[in-house]
């Protein structure tokens, strides 16, 4: 009873704390107002300008035809990932009973008779057919230069495949494939894509590289559903004057290229 009484008699001090609290709140409010008045700098006149003071608002132009600093290759054959190969699980060591051990009656498990299942239950469900084993084990992928590759430019990705000749263009002239990859990625201007799009389906472009190296017959093979992305991908190819003449010992008149672009902002 007495303890309760003490609490009741203390409510005088509430007012004092409340005052402090009020003072502090007012102080914070005044502080914010003061800061708004005192704080130097712009009040919105400079919005959208190139920058403040000596700081320059540098916007990225993605296509000066220059390769820049090296980044890790995106090729799955050459990165540190262990690939898709599954390692075999270690066989569990089977615990064998010691020869002189006396069996404890409670621990001897009764062998359960196999539960009978009905005929309908026994029917195996269709299992997914396992595909041919084309997994490349870690470290055995061979050289990076291959007939099919990927690239990434400013966070977006693309890939391409070559057809033509005896089908071995990509392996014989890996250096030319690299040139095509580089030129296309340099000439793809991402700012042409509708800025409200954040991700899109992959768009496939096909084109031919003629004997003298100029691209022809640029077509959207499969649209991404975003017209501006399709167009920017098409223009990336059309913007290129030449990839350089095809290798002189290559017999055919042209080589066909399929190029895909993955767009992600």
């Amino acid at each position, binding site marked *: 009873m007495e303890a309760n009484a003490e609490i009741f008699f203390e409510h005088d001090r509430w007012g004092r704390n409340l005052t402090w609290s009020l003072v502090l709140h007012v*102080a914070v409010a005044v502080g914010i107002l003061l800061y708004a008045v005192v704080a130097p*700098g712009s009040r919105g006149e400079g919005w959208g300008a190139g920058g*403040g003071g*000596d700081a320059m608002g*540098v916007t*990225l*132009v993605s*296509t000066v035809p220059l*390769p820049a600093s090296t980044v890790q290759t995106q090729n799955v054959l050459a990165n540190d990932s262990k690939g898709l190969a599954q390692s075999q699980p270690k066989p569990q060591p089977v615990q064998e009973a010691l020869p002189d051990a006396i069996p404890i009656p409670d621990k001897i498990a009764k062998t359960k008779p196999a539960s009978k299942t009905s005929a309908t239950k026994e029917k195996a469900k269709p299992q997914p057919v396992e595909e041919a084993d084309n997994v490349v084990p870690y470290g055995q992928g061979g050289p990076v230069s291959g007939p099919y590759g990927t*690239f990434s430019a400013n966070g977006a990705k693309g890939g391409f495949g070559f057809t033509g000749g005896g089908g071995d263009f990509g392996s014989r002239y890996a250096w030319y494939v690299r040139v095509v990859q580089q030129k296309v990625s340099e000439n793809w201007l991402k700012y042409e894509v509708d800025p409200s799009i954040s991700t899109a389906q992959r768009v496939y472009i096909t084109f031919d590289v003629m004997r003298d190296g100029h691209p022809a017959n640029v077509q959207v093979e499969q649209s991404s559903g975003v017209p501006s992305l399709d167009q920017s991908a098409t223009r990336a190819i059309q913007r290129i004057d030449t990839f350089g003449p095809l290798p002189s010992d290559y017999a055919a008149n042209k080589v066909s290229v399929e190029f895909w672009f993955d767009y992600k902002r």
Partner: protein
Amino acid sequence: MMRFLKLFLPFVLLTSAWSQDWIRTGTGLGVEKVRLAVPDFNASTQDAKNADLLKVFNETLWNDLDNAGIFDMVSKSFYPLGQIGNPADVKFEPWSSPPPNAAMLAFGNLGVSGNGMTVQGWLYDVKNVTSPQVLGKQYQDAATSDAARLTAHKFADEIIFRLGGGIAGIAESKIYFVSSRSGHKEIWAMDYDGANQHAITHLGSISLSPRVSPDGSRIAFSSLTKSGWDILMYSLDLSRLVAFPRFGGTNVSPAWSPDGIKLAFSSSRGGDPEIYTVDASGGNLKRLTSFKGVDVSPAWNRKTGAQIAWVSGRTGLPQVYTMEADGTNVQRLTDQGYAVSPAWSPNGQFLVVSWMRKYGPGAPGAQDIYIMDIASKQWVQLTHDGGRNDFPYWSPDGRHIIFQSSRAGSLQIWTMLADGTNQKQLTFAGANTQPNWSWK
């Protein structure tokens, strides 16, 4: 109140003071450079001259490939032991695996016999063991160090042409510029790497803004003559001035159209300096601009020849504008400051300009080189390092920019890659200005 100040003052100071960094951003990110190994060429004969020529050749070849901007040169300290002079000497594994980890290998040999020199060079894709050869070349020339340098330029250009996507290398290109080292401002020429600097004109007057024709046969420039500033035409084939009409008034800053048929220039023959075009023969003069204020420094769209960028003072300070080649569709590109010296990139996509973003009292803006993407109006600053940087001009491959800068104390000519990296000084004697790169 003091407590309040102690609490909030640091906060106030902090918010107002985070500011002064500039962002340095790369272009074309995500594309790897080719790792290229270039072991020194071998001697293929037993001649005393071999050593000297090999030194010149190896140095020139290495520098050309290094300057190209598309290769990641594998440091020579990583190279496997043993000499490589012929395809039979190449062992793929040591080159294609770390530490060299090279993708491409350029090697060969040089031999002097009598007065002649034979150079054999190969380019191998060492990651492609089954069909490694990309390029095999043989050159024959006189056994002089100039010829060795030229051969190295040619071989480097072949490699750059193959691996750079069909864009010819610039190792054989020339740079024309204005130098006062003889006492008068004359037109001079040099190789792209600064070697072989020599005077072209000897007029004893003031000659400015040289512009070489697309076929490399003539140089148009403005010079102070008895009748004032006139456009003069110098034939590099004939090594003398050839006739070109005098239009009266002050005529400056000529610029060739990419087909070599027309010249654009600025003339004050009608009172106000305006942009005119004229046939390369001197006929068919046409006026393009007609607005009060100075109009100078025209530059053609080098890809299409259908547009002209130029500098106009119609709104006060000089700004960069573009128009169609017939004078229509005038558009302003720079929004503020003091922008001069536009030059159009070979692919027609960019303008490079010299720009003081902040100009006027109380705004000591630096004059720096900027690239502008014409379609998107985005721009990137290329130089940051002080001095006044002016008169930028593109290399024929579009990967390099040459410009004049005062950062070294006097006005000298510098070169850099088109993303602003790898800046190098090319000239050192006297004052050298207004560089112009040949078209191929």
